[in-house]
């Protein structure tokens, strides 16, 4: 794809200089879309993230809005800098961080953030331990995030209503100020559990009014989790035997009903344990002839040894 700005856009810019455009001037949305290379990022999103349909739709919409906005600007139409701060809510392991990374990429391709890097922080990185420590700490983080995306994981910890003298409030204040004044320098994405984030916004109306996009991440179904497992295995060059695939489905169904189930993260942990058991099995069967296939195949017995199956 060409790196140079599209002909359509430069023509449009020239036309904008003329300051008067009839309503029926042709606009080349296709060219702008191609040049932004947004399709590649969206495809990657589709390919690498299983499920999450509402999230993908939302991202597509946002991308479309930004693209049209940019086109409007190039045509000399009024386009206020859109507020891009977002809030991702959902249960653990539903892909909030991963999507935030992609979001940074998309915004970079659309030219809304200059560098496209993501700085992921939690309360510890923003809030200090004693008076006068918080403000410089928060500013430091914000400076690093400029030109990219600031991802605040578990943002509701910033505000602790039970402690009046908590320094989190100071951090929120600085954050709000930067979110308002440096809108074109950085995009802030807050993430956390749905109910806790709702309570956080209730007690911080200033924050909620500055965040335009609320995206909810749904939990994965068994089928989706199985797909995710496949994808993870492929990446680390393992595979299930046909039987193991069936058993893994049963494993997931059982695991989902148990407490502390963290969606994709639990799947990743399960796979790590499977690899452990597989290695153990291979080691126990020393003396027999091994093939490359053996090294990369996970058998049903590896999965059945899990404690999930031990419980009734």
């Amino acid at each position, binding site marked *: 794809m060409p790196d140079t700005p599209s002909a359509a856009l430069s023509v449009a810019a020239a036309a904008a200089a003329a300051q008067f455009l009839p309503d029926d001037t042709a606009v080349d949305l296709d060219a702008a879309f191609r040049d932004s290379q947004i399709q590649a990022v969206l495809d990657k999103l589709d390919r690498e993230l299983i499920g999450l349909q509402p999230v993908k739709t939302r991202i597509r919409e946002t991308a479309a809005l930004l693209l049209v906005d940019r086109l409007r600007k190039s045509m000399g139409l009024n386009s206020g800098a859109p507020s891009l701060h977002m809030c991702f809510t959902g249960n653990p392991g539903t892909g909030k961080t991963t999507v935030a990374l992609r979001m940074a990429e998309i915004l970079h391709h659309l030219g809304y953030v200059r*560098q496209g890097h993501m700085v992921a922080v939690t309360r510890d990185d923003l809030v200090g331990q004693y008076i006068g420590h918080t403000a410089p700490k928060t500013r430091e983080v914000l*400076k690093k995030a*400029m*030109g*990219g995306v600031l991802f605040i994981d578990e943002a509701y910890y910033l505000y602790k209503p039970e402690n009046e003298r908590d320094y989190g409030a100071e951090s929120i204040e600085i954050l709000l100020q930067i979110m308002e004044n440096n809108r074109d320098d950085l995009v802030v994405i807050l993430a956390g559990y749905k109910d806790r984030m709702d309570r956080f916004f209730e007690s911080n109306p200033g924050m909620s009014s500055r965040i335009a996009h609320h995206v909810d991440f749904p939990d994965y179904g068994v089928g989706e989790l199985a797909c995710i497992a496949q994808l993870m295995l492929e990446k680390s060059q393992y595979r299930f035997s046909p039987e193991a695939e069936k058993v893994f489905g049963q494993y997931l169904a059982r695991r989902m009903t148990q407490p502390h189930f963290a969606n994709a993260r639990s799947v990743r942990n399960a796979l790590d344990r499977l690899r452990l058991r597989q290695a153990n099995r291979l080691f126990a069967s020393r003396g027999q002839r091994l093939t490359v296939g053996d090294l990369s195949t996970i058998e049903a017995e590896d999965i059945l040894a899990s404690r999930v199956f031990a419980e009734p």
Partner: protein
Amino acid sequence: MMTNLGGRVTQGQFSFLPDLTDVQITAQVKYALGKGWALGIEYTDDPHPRNTYWEMFGNPMFDMKDPAGILKEVNNCRKTFPNHYIRVTAFSAVRGVESVTMSYIVNRPKNEPGFRLERHETDGRTMRYTIHPYATDKPEGERY
């Protein structure tokens, strides 16, 4: 200072040029960041050329990706010390120590009185010469 009418202090890069604009500073910072250098902001009100170590305005900024944050800090420093010399310094860690690779003044006092030549008579009829900034006749903080 016959070549430097008006007594403008000429230290570091670009100091014979007109003052850098914010856009030009951003471009220079971007270049430094592209090279992987860390940037620091320093200020002083002692313009003597041998005054090498200026006060640091906060710590040098490591791990920065975008010039916006550094420009913000420059403006912060200008607000705090509107009548001081302020310079941006870039440090390269290539040699294992943070060594200065770029340094340019981004803020200077409105009125720079310049330097006078001081003659010092020593043994015999030997003359020693030195320069003395007029500004440093006043105590620190009241110079400009």
